[in-house]
């Protein structure tokens, strides 16, 4: 046999290659009944999310431009938050602003298990902040919007779980499933954090992207429930992808907060804007800190995603890094967010400029998902399309 053989087929074959787990018992039956129940739950969840979105929009409208909130009042509130404490309000140890800015430490505490988050917890009773707080009507709207969000989230999580049961595997084996699970992760994160951090104002900006994601994934990425291709049959699918989903969920929320921050910062810089509902959002500085906290935890999870992906690639493809398009973009996402962290830590760099880098980072997340999976040729052929 000639010794110098071109080996053209191998690269082309890699996408096809796979192997069952050693037991050979891979032929788990898929259950169409469970799969259609999963779809039903998904549609119901989207319906409820739509109502939720309207409620949150109504809530923001009800907040309206509050005449008691002159622009000059902002810095005063900031000072109260950072300095001497809310001497005017009841004995609450947490000045109203600290509760919002607490998002950072809240997240940090939650993921590090350091318990640092405990110091920020402010009761819902403290909701009526120094500035008089939202009207009764607005509060009612926020309450029902939150309840509906929880309902929609339960439905969405049920849909993901049913999908998993219908195929007896982790329900994130193709783009449709990944998008749905990512939306569920963002929804769960919001439900868990919203009350403590008083994120009613954020509701619209979380539920909106979630609905958009679900709609897109149904229209563009829908894939029948089916068994996985062999290269995906690995515990690393569970580890690597679940962390990626969590990271993306955080990036989504951080993206919304980041945009709000830029708008708010723009308004604060401009003295004669007409007051509107944005007035009632937290200050630009605290929005910036919230976005940073979310992005930071997202970045840590993304680093883990990258490393776990490399470990999996080593097992599945024989090399931990081959500059496959998906690897390239995972790396690009990571580097852009690292640049954001640097920009924010660099004295003399405006936080606003840093935030633009974070938004660009989110752009790369979207490309990594929606463009790379579909249009680029690589070994990550799991889109299911």
């Amino acid at each position: 046999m000639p010794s110098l053989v071109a080996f053209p087929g191998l690269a082309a074959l890699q996408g096809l290659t796979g192997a069952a787990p050693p037991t050979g018992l891979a032929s788990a039956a898929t259950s169409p009944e469970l799969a259609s129940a999963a779809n039903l739950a998904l549609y119901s969840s989207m319906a409820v999310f739509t109502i939720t979105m309207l409620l949150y929009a109504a809530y923001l409208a009800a907040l309206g431009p509050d005449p008691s909130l002159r622009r000059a009042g902002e810095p005063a509130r900031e000072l109260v938050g950072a300095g001497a404490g809310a001497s005017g309000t009841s004995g609450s140890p947490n000045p109203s602003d600290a509760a919002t800015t607490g998002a950072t430490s809240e997240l940090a505490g939650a993921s590090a298990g350091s318990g640092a988050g405990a110091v920020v917890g402010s009761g819902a009773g403290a909701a009526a902040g120094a500035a008089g707080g939202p009207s009764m009507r607005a509060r009612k709207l926020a309450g029902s919007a939150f309840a509906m969000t929880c309902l929609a989230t339960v439905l969405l999580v049920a849909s993901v779980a049913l999908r998993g049961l219908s195929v007896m595997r982790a329900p994130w084996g193709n783009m449709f499933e990944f998008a749905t699970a990512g939306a569920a992760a963002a929804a769960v994160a919001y439900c868990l954090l919203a009350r403590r951090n008083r994120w009613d104002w954020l509701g619209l900006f979380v539920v909106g992207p979630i609905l958009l994601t679900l709609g897109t994934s149904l229209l563009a990425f829908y894939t029948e429930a089916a068994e996985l291709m062999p290269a995906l049959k690995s515990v690393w699918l569970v580890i690597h992808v679940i962390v990626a989903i969590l990271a993306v969920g955080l990036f989504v929320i951080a993206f919304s907060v980041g945009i709000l921050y830029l708008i708010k910062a723009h308004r604060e810089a401009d003295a004669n804007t007409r007051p509107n509902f944005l007035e009632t959002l937290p200050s630009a500085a605290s929005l910036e800190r919230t976005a940073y906290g979310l992005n930071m935890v997202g970045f840590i999870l993304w680093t883990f995603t990258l490393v776990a992906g490399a470990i999996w690639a080593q097992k599945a493809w024989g090399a931990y890094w081959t500059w496959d398009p998906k690897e390239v973009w995972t790396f690009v996402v990571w580097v852009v967010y690292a640049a954001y962290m640097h920009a924010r830590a660099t004295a003399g760099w405006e936080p606003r400029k840093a935030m633009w880098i974070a938004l660009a980072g989110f752009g790369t997340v979207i490309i990594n998902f929606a463009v790379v999976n579909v249009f680029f040729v690589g070994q990550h052929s799991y889109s299911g399309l």
Partner: protein
Amino acid sequence: MSGPNPTPPAPSPGSSPGTQPGGRSGTQPGEIRQPRLGPLGWARWSWRTLTSMRTALFLLLLLSVAAVPGSIFPQRSIDAGRVADYLADSPTTGAWLDRLGFFDVYTSVWFSAIYLLLVVSLVGCIIPRSRLHWHALRSRPPRAPAHLERLQAHTSIPYAGSSAAALASARDILRRKRFRVHSHDEGWVSAESGLLRETGNLLFHVALCIVIVGVAVGHLWGWRGDVIVPEGQTFTSTFRSYHTFSGGPLVDSLDVPPFGLRIDRFDVRFEEVVGGAQFGAPRGFTAYTTTTDAPGEAGAQQVLSVNEPLTLGGADVFLLGNGYAPVVTVRDATGSVLYRQATPFLAQDNFYTSVGAIKVPAASPTMLGFSGFFLPTVDPSFANGPVSQFPALKNPELALSVWEGNLFPGGRSQSVYTLNTTELTQVPKADGQPLLIRLAPGQTYELPGGRGSITFDSVSRFAGLSVRHDPGKGITLVAALLTIAGLVASLLVRRRRIFVRASADPANPSTTLVTVGALSKTADPGLEAALQALAQQIADLSTGAAPAARSQRT
């Protein structure tokens, strides 16, 4: 400025240029005489610019942009075939792109330059920061400022007991909270926590460097060999026995371990139920093998599958390819066997339309060659040409054209999957039309003109194995895990300083007044609450503490 300042607070600013975040080099003290910089001055200026945070930031952004083309254009290191296709399709742009390195992005000069600069910047930034941090770790928490009231957060609380007792409690509580504690003067306690933050940050950056070291080790001493092994055959690993072998510049071909591997059985399963794009998708591949670590050793039964590589003689064996190897027999006119072999055909699409060649140099008077398709599930009408309808063996067929002449022009080695037809002529049918032989398993075709016969005996499968050795991967793995650990510490640990003063209460000299002040290096919304909790704890420890000593603020 809400962005945290990475320089530890104790050393005077500017004492280490490399750690000056955003300190625009060249505007640093002593560097303002820029117009008259000598060579040394320029060198120093370049070094400081290179190691500034701004440059690191710029290089990071540049790196992210530079990585992108490698995902858009085909890369030689991944799929040389697609690069060749691209060059054939658009020769002019292709040639330019090639010259600029767009088909080898990750080894191109510009990409390498960016990441090497980044590494230099990284090292130049780590060294001075490590020095500073080392001093910070060994120095005591600093003396308190005279006026605690001016700190970020502060509070006073009465203490029922002596001031010495108050400070002792404070020390106790702070130690338990893992603060480093020191009293510079009587009546004061200074405490500091969160040096782990900087430790973690340094660990993160150092570990990044080690990741690169691991990658380099793998590049220099690592190797990979690819080989196709049909079912029932044994592969014995030597440097020469691989179909393709590539190794780093420091690889000795004798490093390749001499293991043996026999594919006893190769099970394959495809999606038959679900329609759409999933129809025919691969579902399971399992190779049952007998392996030996070295010649002459007893064989072991092992299962090889994707995600489940084998380790043999220090090298990892991966199942990365698969396909069909029709067993074909060619006889001469007298019926004696000239060729009998399982001949691998390479799949071209998801349904395993496969191409291959059968070379019979022993034929006379001239050599014979067959080339064409193997179709695991054929549409007999060939309505869409010779393409397979399904990847499994539902209705296999071999479709071949026949050539004669010189199979090996120039004696050069060539692909085993195609015929080099420059010195071959196609054998026609009796009526002069090109001959196409279509065989199902078990069928035989008598070649025209007494050239003998060809029999399609059966189909076996082959496994495409990739054998890899990467001595750097352990280093890279450990470093990558350290990166995560460092990052978590760097981003989640909070750096705080707390100062406690205990003195006689000026309003009521018989009691002690404890004043606590705190400051943090980073945005730290929990600081105020932590301070209040600490003051309360100190007060609660006072002998016979009033049940609810309310905090007062000055």
